[in-house]
């Protein structure tokens, strides 16, 4: 199923990138938790009220007053949604198309391993990295809250928020990995693998404006992740199912195409 030596090598090679994103997330999580004030409305709420249009586009609406509501709105509306997607775009592109583009895929293909096994290993590396980044964000959020606002964070809801976001990230990574598998150069891989998630985001931003434009939410995956609905306790089963199907379909299709195509190395 998987090649252990390859997984080990890839985990090591993606280490640096993961650490950079862990730094970025740490800074944002820490400062957002710091900005929360349980007594009165925070700076962020004031901003959301003074320029609702802009803030709404970023998925930020004045929260419910609880810490987890504040976080859901200001942290999960943009930062923790999009930064890991940038990480996924870079890594997914590198894992398959990067090797084909540079020609070093020849060495991997010249080993007694099926192409499906090689591609599955690269996919697994992406999954492990996504899980680690999500786990890190969750733990960082819990620790920061415990230090700055002890006892105020609804940990159950915070974990739920992160879990569903992780499923969204897995689905998006499926698209990026698919792009990487079908491309023989990184240019094409990036065009699709970065283009689609960015277009999704733009659609989402427009759909957030509400009114007639709200229907656009059917054209982006991100609308399936609604932090405020999760906090409100609404059922997310349908959303998670759709995301899971998207992930499975794109990974399967990408790996299948890679196993059959001509690799010019």
């Amino acid at each position, binding site marked *: 199923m998987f090649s252990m*030596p390859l997984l080990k090598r890839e985990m090591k090679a993606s280490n640096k990138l993961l650490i950079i994103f862990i730094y970025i997330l740490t800074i944002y999580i820490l400062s957002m938790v710091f900005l929360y004030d349980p007594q009165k409305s925070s700076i962020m709420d004031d901003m959301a009220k003074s320029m609702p249009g802009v803030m709404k586009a970023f998925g930020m609406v004045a929260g419910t007053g609880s810490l987890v509501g504040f976080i859901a709105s200001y942290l999960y509306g943009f930062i923790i949604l999009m930064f890991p997607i940038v990480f996924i775009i870079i890594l997914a592109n590198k894992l398959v198309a990067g090797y084909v583009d*540079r020609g070093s895929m020849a060495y991997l293909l010249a080993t007694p391993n099926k192409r499906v096994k090689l591609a599955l290993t690269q996919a697994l590396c992406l999954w492990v990295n996504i899980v680690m980044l999500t786990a890190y964000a969750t733990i960082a959020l819990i620790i920061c809250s415990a230090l700055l606002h002890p006892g105020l964070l609804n940990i159950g809801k915070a974990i739920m928020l992160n879990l569903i976001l992780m499923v969204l990230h897995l689905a998006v990574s499926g698209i990026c990995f698919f792009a990487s598998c079908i491309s023989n150069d990184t240019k094409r891989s990036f065009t699709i693998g970065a283009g689609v998630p960015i277009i999704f985001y733009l659609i989402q931003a427009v759909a957030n404006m509400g009114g007639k434009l709200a229907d656009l939410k059917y054209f982006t995956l991100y609308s399936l992740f609604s932090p405020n609905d999760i906090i409100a306790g609404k059922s997310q089963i349908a959303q998670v199912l759709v995301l899971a199907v998207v992930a499975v379909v794109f990974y399967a299709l990408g790996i299948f195409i890679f196993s059959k195509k001509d690799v*010019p190395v």
Partner: protein
Amino acid sequence: MNVIEVKQLTKDYGNKKGVFDVDLTVKKGEVFGFLGPNGAGKTTTIRHLMGFIHPDKGQCFINGMDCSKQQEIIQQKLGYLPGEIAFMEDMTGIKFIKFIAEMKGIKDFSRAQELIDMFSLDPNGKIKRMSKGMKQKIGIVCAFMNDSDVIILDEPTSGLDPLMQNKFLELVLAEKEKGKTIFMSSHIFDEIERTCDRTAIIKEGHIVAVENLKTLSQSKRKSYVITFATEDMAASFAKEGYEIKETHGNQITVTHKGNVKPLIHTLDKYEVTALDVKTQSLEELFMHYYGGEDHV
């Protein structure tokens, strides 16, 4: 027994690029050369053998297995040196070699170490910082370290200095002694002549000749460029009945096959100031196929 079989292999990239109806067979224990300039279709043929790309028409087999379907089984007993050097640049040389060894399931690293020593390679630096020759050596170590039965080499000596080229040719001959089957593409005549049993010449995607190098060398006609002291001497030598190819003042080019003793005896009568030998080589043969009509 045929270890490598290419049947009617066709891959059309358009614009006359690709390979067309290529038929080749390489027997067990044979060193087979594959000669042609850049863009003639050498690497395309090799990519088919490796199962990287799939033919439009025709098939290739290694040890009776279809190259585009049973690639992972064929790879168990195959060594490969890509024509383009591209490694995982972030690794050190030794880490890369060990990584490839693990990927190939090689438990015994002693052969790799032997090869590293043979090519006096220092594999500890980062690959990014290595010269072309150093990288080529790493590729060679990776191709030969698993003691495979079949070895496919795409322009193996590019980037190597003359000393290392020699070492490499020695390695090929030693592997041949062990009964390995080697398929080697090249555009260097000398290395093909020194190592190969047979060689195919490819031109614009078509095989134009498959030559047995032993018969080629036996049938070799040699040309002797003889410079005489005077033009008179040259003129009288011309009447001796040798096959004169060219006369140029006091210089005569004679083609001669087999024993040279009679020629030497004849020359003894004259005052010869210089004598050069030109061998009809693979190169001439190659030029014969390539120097043809549509080379404008």
